[in-house]
C-alpha cells in the first residue's frame, strides 16, 4: 500500500485488562503487516512516541468508569473518522458492568471504597463506550479473537465494512462436534452468545459464559425457561446472564423478570 494511502490509526484503552490490545501485540505473525499497513499514531501499550492527531480509525478497548475517561472518549471521537469498539468491556461494559441497569450503584460503590476521596478521577458507574459516543463497528470478545480482529481490521483499513456472521457459539460448537452441555443440564450460554471464539470453552467441556456478548437473535426467554426446566434457579441463571452481557442483556432480562 502506498504511504499516502495508509490510514492513521490510534489504539486506546480505558477500564479493562488490556487483554484486547495484548491479543494484538501477541499476534507475532501479523505484527509486521499490522505496523506496515497503517500509520499507528497512538498505541501506548506498544510504543512511546504517541500523539493526539486526527485519525481515520480509532480502536478503543475498555469501559468508561470515570468522568475523565468519558471526556477523553468524546475527545477521541471528535478527531476520528471511524470509531471501533474492541472487546467486551468497550462493547457491553464487561464484568464491571454486571449490575448495569439495576439501581444502587452508589451503595455498592460505598460498600467497596467507603468514603474514600478520589483526587484525580471522578468515578461513575462503569458503562460501555456507546453510552457516551457513537460507535461505527463492534468487535466483541473477552479477549478479542486475533483472527476475527485482523479480518475486520484488514477490511476497515480499505474502507470496507467487514461482516461478522451473526451466529451463536452453538454453531461453532456443533462444527467442532462437542458434547452439548445444555443437553446435560449445564448452564451454558452458547445459544445466546455471539460466536467468533471457535467455541473455545465448550470444547474444553466448560460452559459458555457469554463473554462475546449477546447474538442479535438471542432467545433469552426460551433459554431462561429451558435452564429452569433443567433445575437451575432463577438467581443462578440471572447471575450468569449478567456476568459478561452488561448493556446487551438489560432489555431482554427486564422483559422476563420485570425488574433486574
Amino acid at each position, binding site marked *: 500500500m502506498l504511504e499516502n494511502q495508509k490510514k492513521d490509526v490510534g489504539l486506546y484503552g480505558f477500564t479493562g485488562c488490556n487483554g484486547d490490545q495484548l491479543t494484538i501485540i501477541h499476534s507475532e505473525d501479523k505484527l509486521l503487516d499490522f505496523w506496515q499497513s497503517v500509520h499507528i499514531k497512538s498505541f501506548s501499550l506498544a510504543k512511546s512516541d504517541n500523539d493526539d492527531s486526527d485519525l481515520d480509525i480509532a480502536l478503543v478497548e475498555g469501559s468508561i468508569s470515570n468522568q475523565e475517561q468519558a471526556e477523553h472518549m468524546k475527545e477521541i471521537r471528535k478527531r476520528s473518522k471511524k470509531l471501533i469498539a474492541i472487546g467486551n468491556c468497550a462493547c457491553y461494559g464487561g464484568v464491571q458492568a454486571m449490575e448495569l441497569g439495576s439501581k444502587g450503584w452508589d451503595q455498592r460503590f460505598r460498600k467497596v471504597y467507603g468514603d474514600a476521596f478520589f483526587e484525580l478521577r471522578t468515578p461513575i458507574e462503569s458503562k460501555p463506550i456507546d453510552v457516551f459516543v457513537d460507535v461505527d463497528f463492534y468487535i466483541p470478545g473477552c479477549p478479542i479473537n486475533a483472527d476475527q480482529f485482523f479480518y475486520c481490521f484488514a477490511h476497515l483499513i480499505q474502507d470496507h465494512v467487514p461482516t461478522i456472521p*451473526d451466529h451463536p457459539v452453538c454453531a461453532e460448537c456443533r462444527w467442532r462436534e462437542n458434547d452439548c452441555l445444555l443437553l446435560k443440564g449445564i448452564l451454558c450460554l452458547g445459544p445466546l452468545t455471539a460466536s467468533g471464539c471457535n467455541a473455545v470453552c465448550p470444547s474444553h467441556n466448560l460452559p459458555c459464559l457469554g463473554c462475546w456478548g449477546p447474538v442479535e*437473535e438471542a*432467545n433469552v426467554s426460551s433459554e431462561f425457561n429451558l435452564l429452569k426446566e433443567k433445575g437451575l434457579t432463577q438467581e443462578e441463571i440471572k447471575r450468569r446472564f449478567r456476568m459478561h452481557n452488561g448493556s446487551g442483556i438489560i432489555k431482554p432480562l427486564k422483559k422476563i423478570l420485570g425488574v433486574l
Partner: protein
Amino acid sequence: MRAVKLRKQDLPAFLKCVQSFGELWGPVREKDRQVLKKTDDVNQIDLTTIRTSLPFKKLLFPPRFSMFHFSGNKYTTSLEHLPNRIIFGLHPCDIHALLIMDDFFTRSFDDPYYTERRKKTAIIGFSCIPDEKCFCHATKTDTVEEGFDLFLTDLDDFFLIWVGSSLGDDMTRECPKIIDEGILPEDLKKYVEWRKYRNSQFKMDIDLTSMPEIFDLSYDSVIWEEEGEKCLSCGACTIVCPTCPCYHVYDKIEMGKIEGERMRQWDSCLFKEYSMVAEGHNFRESRAERLKLRFTHKLQAFVGEYGKPACVGCGRCIETCPVDIDIATIVRRLRGEEVKV
C-alpha cells in the same frame, strides 16, 4: 449386484487392505458421541455407531474452507491436492442423504468444491439396527440400492458385502484371501431373517404420508408461532442435518494488500442474516417464519422439486435440539397428534 462374504474377524484386515485406495474415515467414539474421523488404527472404529454427531457432509464441504486464493486479478483454487478418502460406516439414511447432496450440488451446474471432493470419496456402507430416534422406515430411506461402493450387512458371524460400483469391485479383489465369493442358500436365508428382525426394531411411530398437503393446509397454523417462541435460533439442527447444504461466502483479505482468500462457511436458514438482502430487508424477520421455512422446505418444497422429502430419518435433529423442535415433533403437531409442548 455382486455380493461376497467376509468373516467377522477379517474386518480389520479388510479395512487395512482397502486403505491402499485412500484415507480411511470412520465413526470413532469420543466421550459421549461418535465422530467421523480419519483413522489409521482400524480397531478404533466403533461398529455400534447409530449416528455420528456430524454427518459425512463435513468431508464433502467442510464447515469453513478457502475456495481460492486471489491476488490482484489472478486466483488459484484449493482443489489441487485433495486426498482420496474412504468413508466407512454410512448407514442407509446417510447414503440417501448423500444421493440428495449429489443431486443438489450437480443438478443445475457442477459445484467443483463439492464434486471434486466427491469424486475422490469412496463409500463403504454399514448396516444398522435402529434406535428410538431412527425413523428412516417412515422416510423410506431404510434400504439402499445405490450410492455406495460397498455395503456391509452384519449377519452375526460374517458380513454380507454388496458391491455397488467398479471401485467397490476393485476393493474386494484387492484382498482375495479374505473375501469369500461363495454365497450359500443359508446365507441368503440369514439375510432375509436379519431384514425381518431389523424391520421389527423401529420404535418411533411417525407418519409422513401426505406431508406436502398438510403443510399447505398449515401455512397459517399457530404451531409456527408457538414453536418459534421456543426456538433458540442456534442453528444446531441445520448443522447436524445430512441434507442441509446452505452456505455463506465471504472474502478474507490480507492487511494492506489486494490479496486474500474467498471463504465458504456453513450457514443456516434459522439465522436471521440468512434471509437478509440489500438495504437490510429481511424476508423472514421472525423466528416462526424461519422455522416454518426449514420444515416446509424439508417436507414439502423439496418433494415438489426432487420428488422426495429432504429428510432421511437419521434422528440427528431429535438428538441435538435443546428445546425438542425436530421433524418428529413438528410432524406430529401438524397432524394433530398429542405432543408435550
